[in-house]
Structures are given as structure tokens and as C-alpha cells.
């Protein structure tokens, strides 16, 4: 097995998943813009931010700090093992910040106005500062990365200029990063009444930047290890890595003593993890000090709530375990243990930001925020896009190594010979556009039907039955949506005024078959949505029984009893009253056909019954107060609504008179 096939093997499955998530994300992004935030997310006025802002933006930016820390260690201090990691660190920062900003586009209500903070300055807002720093830093990371990209694309002159300016970029980057990481913490400083006592701390900005520096270094160590695992295991994992029939060329080593020869890059990983652990130990000391000095935090920790458990898990993963693990010598020598340490710290850092932004923040919202499917899919879709960009850049540019130069010559040449189908499947379909498009054609429709909001509509909540229960009362208080603000309806008075028993049909337009006191909510089941009230399946059997149809299966003969014409659809069906002349009561028997076999929303059913009559009487009896919202709704009519409606009415009346 050649090296080429081995490497495609190790990353292929990951890339497949990333492509699938990317395509699902694209569908979710489209749906988010078509249907809006309210319909596609579980965010509302009480939970104004969620997964995108906290996980993608705040956690993402925190994890991408390696760009400026390693840039500082390598470029400014010229420390030995770190200078080799500057390019990967900048790539991680570029993609991390890019993904954060991209996810933010879906979070803000009017994404096309994302540039407004550049022009309209609100110098009192921490977010204003964060926005400026993050967007400027993103540009800086791109400028820092560009010499690497230009190396392959040519343009040597431009590359020279950019390389010379690298030092300046690094310093600007360090400034911008330290500014916005502290500001992200300060953001929560202004909400002591919302943030849980465990996380609300006067030094939260300091905690934010220190944990971000430590966790960022850990993430870079993890990425370096993974890169080696995917492309060249001997670099980090050493020479004896024999797996899945891979015969390693550098298997020499000190086999007599049974010791594993170290990979030549393991010391880089170790240096990153150790540096990260040093920073995290400072973070841990600050955290402990913070806990000791704030009595309310101590009380909250001992309270045994699930927040205190979360806090312990977070601190264990983010600081305690990584620091302790690095103290153990075998851990420092094992690439696997180092990867686990780095992974723990990175996970703990992300969890910390989610704790501060979501778990510790929305207690008072009264309900647990759980992101909707579309929120999850966009979150991971954006991350997957960044992942694919990562793979593309490291495979085609000199970020970690000069791999692309070696592979450029050995690329598979297209063969015009008649290929075996299996060969086509395994090789031509296994890479690039062909494979990605194959994933797309499954994932795109699947994501569409699982995320498309109209397909997800659950059965609307039933409204209370106002008529059947309250028929005997003089005055009905109708509060179908149960918001405590009821409309008052003088039922008996209306009956007398409109002409006694015979006037019932004026409002009660249609009853269920064989039922004379059908409550409105029996058919108008949802407050704002239409309800399908026609049971097609049952009708097949009812019609067959009623008409005494014969044949093998009587139900099968019943189609033509109602449907005429070529196509059997709702449009070609009979009106209800044609059969239900005896047992249903309708105002106008000829008009007893149910439009679309659906009942309108409860809201419009009520309004459309009352308002036309009231409007007419307001005009004919010259009693304008009859036509006001407050005639029925004594409370809860929004201010200004009435005036708007009346303006509209006036215009309509004027048009009618003309």
C-alpha cells in the first residue's frame, strides 16, 4: 500500500462527515433566512442568544487564541519549538475566527447590516469593541496567512512585502486579541443579576483571557497530533506504529531495550501542552482564589444544584486534570496521553463559555433553552465548512509541511481506458467533487425534509370549548388562548336582539353531523392556524356502508360517490351538504362546502363572525363605539392598534361610499 492511499484512507471518513454536515448546514441556512429566526430557532425575548453566539462565537474565538500566543512565542520571542507552529497556529486562528463571524451572520436579525458597527459607533457597548477587534483580527490573520497561500499561487513580490510586515501584523494581532478576549469577559460583568454566582466574578475578564490562552495552546497541540495521525504517524507517534498493514520505514529504534523511539515532532506537542498547562495552572489558582474570596460562590458550589456539578466538571476538565496529568512523566512521553490532556483542556474551555453564556445565564428565563434542529445543524455546518477549508489548505499549501509538493507529481492521471465499475467506484468516486456531490444528493433532500418547518408542525394545542360549556350563561368570557385577557360576549342579549332562537344560525354556521351544539373549538382547533377537519379515511368506510356498496372490498367503490372528473382531488369532491342535508346545520346549505376541507383559525373565526356585523351597525346606527376593539376586549388591546385599524376602516368606508 502506497503512502498516498494510506493518507486518503485516514481522512476520507472525516471528510465525508464534514461534507454531509456542510450540505445539511446549507439547507438549514437557507431555511433560516426564508422562515426567519422565530420559526427556525428556539430563541425568544427571554433567551435572546443561544448556540450560535455562545458556542460558535465565544467558545470558537476562545479556542482560536493560538494564533496570537504562538505568534508571540515564535515570532517575537523566537522560542525554538514554537516557531515551527506559527503557520498552523495562524491557520487555526483564521478558520476559527472566520467560522465564528460566519455563524454570527445567522444570529443577527438583519445580516446584511453586519457592517453597521463600523459606521455607527456605540462607544458604550462592550460588543462594539468586541466586534471591531474580532473583525479586524480576522483580517490580520488573513494577512498573516497570505504569504503561505501566495507561495503556491506565485506573486513573489507581494509575498515578500507581506512576509516583511509579518512582525507588525503579529503585534497588532496580539493587541486586538488581548482587547477583545477581556471584553468578552467584561460583557458578562454588566449582568450580575442574571449570571449565576458560580461564574459571575469581578475578575471574569482576566479569567476569560487566561483560560483562552491556555486552552488555545492545548487545541493547537491536539491539532498537531491529529495532523500527524492522519498524514504521517511517525512524526509524533514514533517509528513502531504498525497498524492495518502499514509497514513503517523508520521502524529502527532501540528495539533491544523495548523502548519506543520518540517521534521527531513529539517534543513540539509536549512543549505546547506544557506551556498550556503552565497558563492553566495560573488560571486554576485564580479560580480557587475567586472561589475562596466570594462567599456567595462558595455557597453556590456547596448547594449541590446541577450548576455546581457542571462547575466541578468544567473546572476538572479545563484546568485540574490537564495540570495534574502533565506533572506525570509517562504522560509527557506518550502522544496519546498528551492528546487526551489537550483534548480535555480544549473541551473544558468550550464548556466554560457555554456555562457562562447559556447554562449559568438563562436560569431566570424559567425554561431550559434547548437549541432547535436548525440551530444544531447550522452550528455544526459552519464548523464542518471550516474543517473542510482546514483540510484543503493543509493539503495544498505549506502549513504543516511541504506535502503538496511531493504529491503534485504523483496525482492520479485520468485514464481513458474502459474502467471496471468497481474501480470507478473505489477510485474516481472516492475523491473530490464526485464523492462530495454523491453525499450532497442524499444529504440535501434529507436535510430539507427533516428541517423544513411546515413538515415539522406538530398538532396545534386545542383551545377550550367555549360554547358547549357556557351555552346557558348570559355572559360568556372567551379566552381561547388563555392569556388571562378575555373577550366579553353578552350571549343572551345578542340572541334576544337578533331575533330569538331563529337567529342562532347567524353565528353558528355549521354543526358536526348529528350534533347541534358543536363548540366553535371543535373545528377551529388552533388559535392562529387552520385545522383539517375532514377525515378522508373514515369517509371511505362510511360512504360504503351508507350506500350499501358491493364488490370485493366495498370501500374501494366509494371514490366515485364523491369525486367526479379525471383527477381525484379536493377540487373534484362534492360539497358536504350534498350528503349531510339531514344531519348538519348550515346557514346557507348551498355554501356548505368546506374550503380546502379546513377550518380557519379560532382567531379569524371569531373576528370574521363579529366584526362585519358590528361594523355595519356602527355605521347604520351611527354608534362608532360598536366598532372598537374595546367593545369586546376590555383589556390587552395594544396601544395605537385601534387608531391604525380605524384609519383603515375610514378609508374603506370612504371607498365604499364612493
Amino acid at each position, binding site marked *: 500500500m502506497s503512502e498516498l492511499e494510506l493518507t486518503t484512507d485516514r481522512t476520507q471518513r472525516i471528510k465525508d462527515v464534514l461534507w454531509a454536515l456542510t450540505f445539511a448546514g446549507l439547507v438549514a441556512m437557507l431555511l433560516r433566512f426564508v422562515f426567519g429566526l422565530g420559526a427556525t430557532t428556539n430563541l425568544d425575548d427571554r433567551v435572546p442568544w443561544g448556540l450560535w453566539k455562545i458556542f460558535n462565537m465565544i467558545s470558537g474565538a476562545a479556542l482560536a487564541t493560538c494564533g496570537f500566543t504562538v505568534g508571540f512565542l515564535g515570532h517575537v520571542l523566537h522560542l525554538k519549538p514554537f516557531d515551527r507552529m506559527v503557520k498552523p497556529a495562524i491557520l487555526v486562528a483564521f478558520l476559527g475566527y472566520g467560522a465564528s463571524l460566519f455563524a454570527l451572520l445567522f444570529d443577527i436579525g438583519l445580516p446584511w447590516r453586519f457592517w453597521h458597527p463600523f459606521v455607527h459607533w456605540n462607544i458604550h457597548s462592550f460588543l462594539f469593541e468586541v466586534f471591531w477587534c474580532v473583525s479586524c483580527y480576522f483580517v490580520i490573520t488573513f494577512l498573516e496567512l497570505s504569504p503561505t497561500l501566495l507561495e503556491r499561487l506565485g506573486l513573489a513580490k507581494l509575498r515578500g512585502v507581506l512576509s516583511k510586515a509579518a512582525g507588525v501584523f503579529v503585534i497588532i494581532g496580539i493587541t486586538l486579541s488581548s482587547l477583545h478576549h477581556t471584553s468578552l469577559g467584561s460583557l458578562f460583568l454588566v449582568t450580575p443579576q442574571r449570571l449565576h454566582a458560580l461564574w459571575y466574578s469581578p475578575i471574569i475578564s482576566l479569567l476569560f483571557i487566561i483560560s483562552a490562552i491556555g486552552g488555545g495552546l492545548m487545541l493547537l497541540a491536539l491539532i498537531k497530533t491529529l495532523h500527524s495521525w492522519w498524514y504521517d504517524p511517525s512524526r509524533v507517534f514514533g517509528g513502531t506504529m504498525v497498524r492495518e498493514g502499514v509497514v513503517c520505514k523508520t521502524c529502527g529504534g532501540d528495539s533491544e531495550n523495548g523502548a519506543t523511539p520518540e517521534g521527531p515532532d513529539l517534543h513540539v506537542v509536549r512543549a505546547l501542552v506544557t506551556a498550556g498547562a503552565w497558563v492553566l495552572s495560573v488560571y486554576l489558582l485564580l479560580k480557587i482564589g475567586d472561589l475562596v474570596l466570594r462567599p456567595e460562590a462558595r455557597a453556590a458550589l456547596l448547594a449541590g444544584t446541577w450548576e455546581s456539578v457542571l462547575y466541578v466538571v468544567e473546572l476538572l476538565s479545563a484546568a485540574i486534570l490537564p495540570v495534574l496529568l502533565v506533572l506525570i512523566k509517562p504522560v509527557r512521553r506518550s502522544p496519546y496521553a498528551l492528546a487526551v490532556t489537550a483534548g480535555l483542556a480544549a473541551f473544558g474551555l468550550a464548556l466554560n463559555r457555554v456555562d457562562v453564556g447559556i447554562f449559568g445565564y438563562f436560569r431566570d428565563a424559567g425554561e431550559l433553552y434547548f437549541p432547535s434542529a436548525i440551530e444544531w445543524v447550522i452550528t455544526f455546518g459552519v464548523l464542518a465548512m471550516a474543517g473542510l477549508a482546514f483540510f484543503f489548505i493543509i493539503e495544498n499549501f505549506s502549513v504543516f509541511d511541504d506535502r503538496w509538493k511531493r504529491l503534485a507529481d504523483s496525482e492520479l492521471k*485520468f485514464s*481513458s*481506458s*474502459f*474502467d*471496471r*465499475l468497481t474501480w470507478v467506484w473505489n477510485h474516481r468516486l472516492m475523491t473530490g*467533487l*464526485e464523492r462530495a*456531490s*454523491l453525499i*450532497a*444528493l*442524499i444529504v*440535501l*433532500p*434529507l436535510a*430539507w*425534509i427533516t428541517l*423544513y418547518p411546515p*413538515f415539522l408542525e406538530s398538532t396545534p394545542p386545542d383551545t377550550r370549548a367555549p360554547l358547549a360549556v357556557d351555552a346557558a350563561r348570559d355572559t360568556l368570557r372567551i379566552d381561547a388562548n388563555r392569556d388571562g385577557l378575555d373577550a366579553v360576549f353578552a350571549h343572551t342579549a345578542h340572541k334576544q336582539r337578533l331575533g330569538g332562537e331563529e337567529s342562532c344560525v347567524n353565528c353558528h354556521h355549521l354543526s358536526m353531523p348529528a350534533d347541534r351544539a358543536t363548540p366553535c373549538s371543535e373545528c377551529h382547533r388552533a388559535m392562529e392556524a387552520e385545522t383539517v377537519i375532514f377525515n*378522508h*379515511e373514515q369517509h*371511505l368506510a362510511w360512504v360504503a356502508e351508507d350506500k350499501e356498496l358491493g*364488490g*370485493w*372490498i366495498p*370501500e*374501494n*367503490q366509494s*371514490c366515485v360517490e364523491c369525486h367526479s372528473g*379525471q*383527477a*381525484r*382531488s379536493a377540487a373534484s369532491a362534492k360539497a358536504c351538504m350534498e350528503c349531510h342535508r339531514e344531519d348538519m346545520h348550515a346557514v346557507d346549505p348551498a355554501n356548505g362546502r368546506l374550503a380546502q376541507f379546513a377550518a380557519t383559525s379560532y382567531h379569524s373565526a371569531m373576528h370574521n363572525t363579529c366584526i362585519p356585523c358590528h361594523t355595519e351597525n356602527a355605521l347604520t346606527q351611527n354608534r362608532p363605539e360598536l366598532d372598537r376593539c374595546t367593545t369586546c376586549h376590555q383589556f390587552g388591546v395594544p396601544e395605537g392598534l385601534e387608531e391604525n385599524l380605524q384609519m383603515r376602516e375610514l378609508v374603506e368606508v370612504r371607498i365604499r361610499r364612493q
Partner: protein
Amino acid sequence: MQAWIDFAMGPLFAFSLGVMALGLLRHLVLQLDTLFRRKRSRLKYMPWNKMLHDSLEWALPVRHLTSGNVIFSNASFVFHIGAILVPLFYAGHIVLWEQWLGVKLWSIGNGFADVLTVITILAVLVLLVSRIAVPRLRAISRNSDVSLLVLILLPFISGFLAAHPAFNPLPWQTMFLIHLLSAEALLILVPFTKLSHIVLIFFDRISEIHWQLRPGAGDRVAETVLGKEAKV
């Protein structure tokens, strides 16, 4: 049962139509990509006239219906008429296209659709029997060639029975669900099986197989398609 029918007519139909449309689009794009990117240098040698001539001739293959296995060829030709017209222009389907794609197609009369459906079913049966019983045809038939024919039978038969209650041995809903599910299975299979010739047929005339086979490649065709040496 009604819930299953609603699901099959709603999300599942959208899914299968999406898979088919995207899959065919993918074939189209990859074919054009192959043609223009990888073969640009050879395009000038392409026998454009012959390709056009062949394509038009195969659209109405009168000459090919009178030679070779006449029964098989004619059954295949007749089958394609019904297989294209009935799914697209049957009155009950037009409602579906209007609902999902917003296009109003013309309708063939229900009586004509019935006749076409019966003819199509008979044609498929002829093709099926030929592929199994005639040794020459059997030798060049893959498993998928036979099983796809069986799968194609299902929506035609179930659709016919659902529309004709008098002959229907099952409850209407059951038959209709079978019709929906089998037709949707076919739609999903289109991009992954030889059914993709819906789009690829237009590229057959310009594919490498047609105009630049190497000398002796014919022997390898059978080997490639069948995975074994053909005994024809």
C-alpha cells in the same frame, strides 16, 4: 394508514424527487465536466455529424425494431412510450406536479392512460420473460437488469388497481401506499442504477465508449460489465 399515505405523499415524495433530480443533475454536470475539461484537446476529432445522426435515429429506432431480437426490441420500444407518458401525464399525477413543482401539465385521458398502462405492463412482462428465458439475453443480463424490471412492474400494477376499484383485491389505502412507496423507491434508485440513462442517454453518443474504444476493447466490455468472460 392515512398518516402513512400523508407521509409518503409529503416528505418522502419530496425526498425521492430531490434525490432523483439532484442525482441526474450530478450526472449531467460530471458528464459535461468530463467532456470539456478532460477531453478538450480531443473535441475537434469528434464525429459530430454521426453523433447527431445516431441520436436522432435512436429517438425513433424504426430500423432497429426489424432486426435482431424483434420481440424484445419492440417490447422495449413500446414500454418506453408508456413509461414516459403515464407517470408524467396521468390526470391523478398532474395534481401532484402542480402541488410540488407548480407546473400545469396536459392530461392524457383516463381511458388512454388505462390502455397505455396495460400495454406497458405487458411489455415489461415480455422483457422480463425474454431476459430470463432467452439464453443470449440471459447471458448479457445482470441481476439488476431483471430486478429493476420487477420493480418497475409494481407501481404500474398497483396504480392501475388503485384507479380501478372493481379489480382491486386489497383495501384502497393499502394499494395506494404500495403504489407510492414502489414509485418512490424507483425515483431514489434512478441516479444509482442504469435508470440514470434518463439523462445519460444524451451522452451515450458522445461518450468515450462510442467513439474512441481502443482496438480489442470489445472483449473487455463484456468482462467489465459482467465481471466474467461472456459466452455468447
